[in-house]
């Protein structure tokens, strides 16, 4: 059973560096590891000092690194929908429908959905033992994590309504001695069931602490601390919990350890000390990792 480690936190706290260190640590214990960056502003290639891409590159025998492209994923999704609509809606006859679809990618919900599709791709991976996910900035990450629950809420109501429509239609068909429609053969109802299953699986995986660990990264400063409290509250609203906290660039100045422990009781808190120089390149990262051990 693969394990997922989702790194969240305020922009600039060092989520990417911490996720790189985590991926290296897991890979060194002979666990087949995938590190995937979902941040549109990728910097894993800078940290590892090597060219990377959306396809993934094996930088160690047990470590593959990937920089996923949310815009590309969004485009692929739209192309898929367009393909399905072409046969059904006299697509070519409708003027400006291509322009309409080009605008749709900017519609609310599309960016977080593209991010969710990338997260789903990680969850569908079967080649790895450990998957480390470096997330985009907080606002987008939170919207992405909210999406399965919100969509499930809508699907639940739409399914109930569709079921009632079919039930009434069948009653009328019975009176007219016509054949009834089995709800499993109703394309809309079946699609809603398929969508419900998909979002249910995603949400259960995100809430299952045995399989998914949400790692919160913060610094010893007021801004990242208050954003961390906000993240905690929002995650709790989605039924998710923080599994581990990393105080990155730790110096020990101020009573941050106490404040963090008080705000996040029962959560493991680790410290990643401030490095003397930039943490880039596998050798430097491994040296830093050995000091932590």
């Amino acid at each position, binding site marked *: 059973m693969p394990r997922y480690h989702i790194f969240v936190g305020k922009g600039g706290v060092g989520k990417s560096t911490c996720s790189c260190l985590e991926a290296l640590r897991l890979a060194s214990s002979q666990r087949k590891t995938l590190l995937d960056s979902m941040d549109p502003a990728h910097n894993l290639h800078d940290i590892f000092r090597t060219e990377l891409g959306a396809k993934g590159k094996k930088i160690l025998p047990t470590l593959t690194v990937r920089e996923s492209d949310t815009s590309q994923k969004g485009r692929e999704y739209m192309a898929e929908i367009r393909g399905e609509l072409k046969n059904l809606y006299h697509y070519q006859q409708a003027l400006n429908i291509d322009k309409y679809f080009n605008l749709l990618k900017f519609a609310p919900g599309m960016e977080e959905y593209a991010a969710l599709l990338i997260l789903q791709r990680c969850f569908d991976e079967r080649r790895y033992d450990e998957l480390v996910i470096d997330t985009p900035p907080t606002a987008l990450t939170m919207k992405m994590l909210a999406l399965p629950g919100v969509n499930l809420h809508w699907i639940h109501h739409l399914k109930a*309504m569709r079921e009632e*429509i079919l039930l009434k239609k069948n009653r009328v068909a019975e009176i007219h001695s016509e054949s009834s429609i089995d709800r499993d053969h109703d394309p*809309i109802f079946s699609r809603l069931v398929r969508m419900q299953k998909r979002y249910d699986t995603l949400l259960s995986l995100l809430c299952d602490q045995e399989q998914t660990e949400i790692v919160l990264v913060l610094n010893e400063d007021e801004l990242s601390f208050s954003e961390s409290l906000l993240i905690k509250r929002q995650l709790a609203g989605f039924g998710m919990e923080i599994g581990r906290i990393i105080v990155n660039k730790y110096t020990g100045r101020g009573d941050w350890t106490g404040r963090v422990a008080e705000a996040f009781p029962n959560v493991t808190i680790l410290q990643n000390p401030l490095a003397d120089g930039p943490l880039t390149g596998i050798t430097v990262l491994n040296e830093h990792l050995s000091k932590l051990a």
Partner: protein
Amino acid sequence: MLYKATAQIEYEISEMENSFTLMLFGNFIGLPGPSMPLTLELLPDMGGELEHMLLRASQTGNGLSELASIMGEP
């Protein structure tokens, strides 16, 4: 009598189908709705429902004759 009863249920079904489509595509007319990806995913199966919604919208101003047609023959 049976005809009138089924006609009323059929009218109710038609209204429910319209509400179902409005719930999904209401954002076109400013109603709050589900996220765009959810709507888009259902769009390929909603051809008939969309046509029904447009027809229903075009008949909105003709409520009296619609009511009369549901009531049927006296």
